[in-house]
């Protein structure tokens, strides 16, 4: 039953911007012809790839005002911060040599060098907007390709270190906030249904991360056999259905069990205002409820933005950065709670008479 919902095209268009979708990302995996992939390359070859790519990237228009960094120059903390901001991957942050990243000044584009593939071109935008993100990623890719020879095969498409990225090399994903589906115990059904459509559901930090804060990264699993636009269209259709399911779940929760929902939100508010020690996963679960309260109109809009900002600020690296010196995990929990108390001190009473959108 639940399955069918994902096969039929939704009739009503979901309005954009939609607060359920936090951000959209498109990532393209590319390799240079004539060099072994990074996992197999020798030190000298990786260095050559890094310098070739860095010089090519400097010529590309959207990256002309940018910051380029070689990973060797960064401290462990700097790397962690970039991971928490979704600007580099965990894999690149652990690279031992010749890893690099180029970030556009607006942070919308980032290109990683010598990650699993020679190049990982990534474009990020707020909300749900595949056409804008794909357009930018596509033009960035074409710009880079004008001065580099890519490894490409007419049958198999762009050749990548892992065959799961073969073909378009494109992974498109949307970060979605789905507390309604989690609370109504429907998330596992959604995951199963979309998996059958070749779509993957992961936690906030991608592969292997958990789903704290009811935030899920939903992306295409298949990269070969369909064009980029066909992949995006299928993914977008599925996402629109997920948004609808989330809306229904929220409506049902507030109708059937409104008091419990209010209680949950209210307790989250209390915890954020009064905790003295808090771990990042607990903080994220509370922030998720603040975000939900803003969606319901129980809290002013600005608290959604605050929750979104705090999702990142409560991550271990960011707390460490705010301390300005190395600190133990226990101290981190104290500092995190202190920051949250300060940020949420002036939170108003919940406006429970607000109309749901």
């Amino acid at each position, binding site marked *: 039953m639940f399955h069918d919902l994902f096969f039929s095209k939704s009739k009503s268009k979901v309005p954009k911007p939609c607060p359920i979708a936090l951000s959209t990302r498109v990532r393209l995996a590319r390799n240079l012809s004539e060099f*072994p992939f990074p996992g*197999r390359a020798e030190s000298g070859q990786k260095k050559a790839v890094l310098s070739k790519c860095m010089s090519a990237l400097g010529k590309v228009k959207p990256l002309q005002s940018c910051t380029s960094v070689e990973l060797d120059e960064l401290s462990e903390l700097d790397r962690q911060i970039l991971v928490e901001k979704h600007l580099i991957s965990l894999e690149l942050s652990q690279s031992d040599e010749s890893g690099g990243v180029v970030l556009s000044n607006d942070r919308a584009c980032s290109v990683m060098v010598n990650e699993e593939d020679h190049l990982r071109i990534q474009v990020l935008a707020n909300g749900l907007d595949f056409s804008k993100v794909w357009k930018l990623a*596509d033009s960035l890719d074409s710009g880079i390709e004008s001065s580099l020879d890519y490894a*490409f095969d007419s049958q198999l498409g762009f050749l990548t270190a892992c065959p799961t990225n073969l073909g*378009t090399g494109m992974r498109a994903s949307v970060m979605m906030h789905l507390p309604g589906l989690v609370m109504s*115990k429907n998330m596992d059904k959604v995951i199963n249904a979309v998996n059958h459509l070749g779509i993957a559901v992961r936690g906030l930090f991608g592969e292997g991360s*958990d789903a704290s804060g009811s935030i899920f990264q939903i992306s295409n699993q298949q990269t070969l*056999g369909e064009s980029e636009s066909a992949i995006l269209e299928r993914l977008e259709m599925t996402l629109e259905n997920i948004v609808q399911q989330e809306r229904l779940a929220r409506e049902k929760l507030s109708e059937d069990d409104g008091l419990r929902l209010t209680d949950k939100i209210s307790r989250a508010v209390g915890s954020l205002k009064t905790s003295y020690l808090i771990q990042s996963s607990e903080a994220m679960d509370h922030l998720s409820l603040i975000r939900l309260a803003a969606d319901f109109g129980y809290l002013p809009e600005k608290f959604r933005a605050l929750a979104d900002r705090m999702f990142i600020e409560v991550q271990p690296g960011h707390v460490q950065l705010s301390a300005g010196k190395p600190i133990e995990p226990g101290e981190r929990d104290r500092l995190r709670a202190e920051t949250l108390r300060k940020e949420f001190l002036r939170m108003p009473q919940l406006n429970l008479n607000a109309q749901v959108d």
Partner: protein
Amino acid sequence: MKCHHCDSQATVHLTQIINGQMHKMDLCEACAQEKGVTNPDNLSIGNLLDENPSKVDASTASMTCESCGTTHQDFKKGGRLGCEACYHVFRPVLEPLLDGMHAGVKHFGKVPSRSVKKKSDDDSEELLTKELKKAVEEENYEKAAKLRDRLKKLQAKSSASA
């Protein structure tokens, strides 16, 4: 992150929703295997390879890419290839895998304008002929008629430009 059962580095992160409660567990590869934690929808190339033992016979076991030194064992273990040339060397073992992994086995997306010659007309003519033959075999005459028209058009175009 450490494994829930032993002190090894956890690489498998399991999230399950049971009775509305989210349960999380971090496991190392060995413990995950032992506990039988496998996700049927997750694509692990290593697993897929093991599921197709008939396709991987003695002759493929000794395959090695001369260009980068990647062996069939390396690929089986890590699921990654070493260079462009690997895609030619390991093609026989790769093709059945791609079929289960992706929506198709032929690239339909962007083609880089530089570096590689565009897909030639010969290629699409060959492809259309193949598809036409298949459609006729399947007695799907409506599809066959459409394919025949496309093929005719293509042949007329290539003879005109020749």
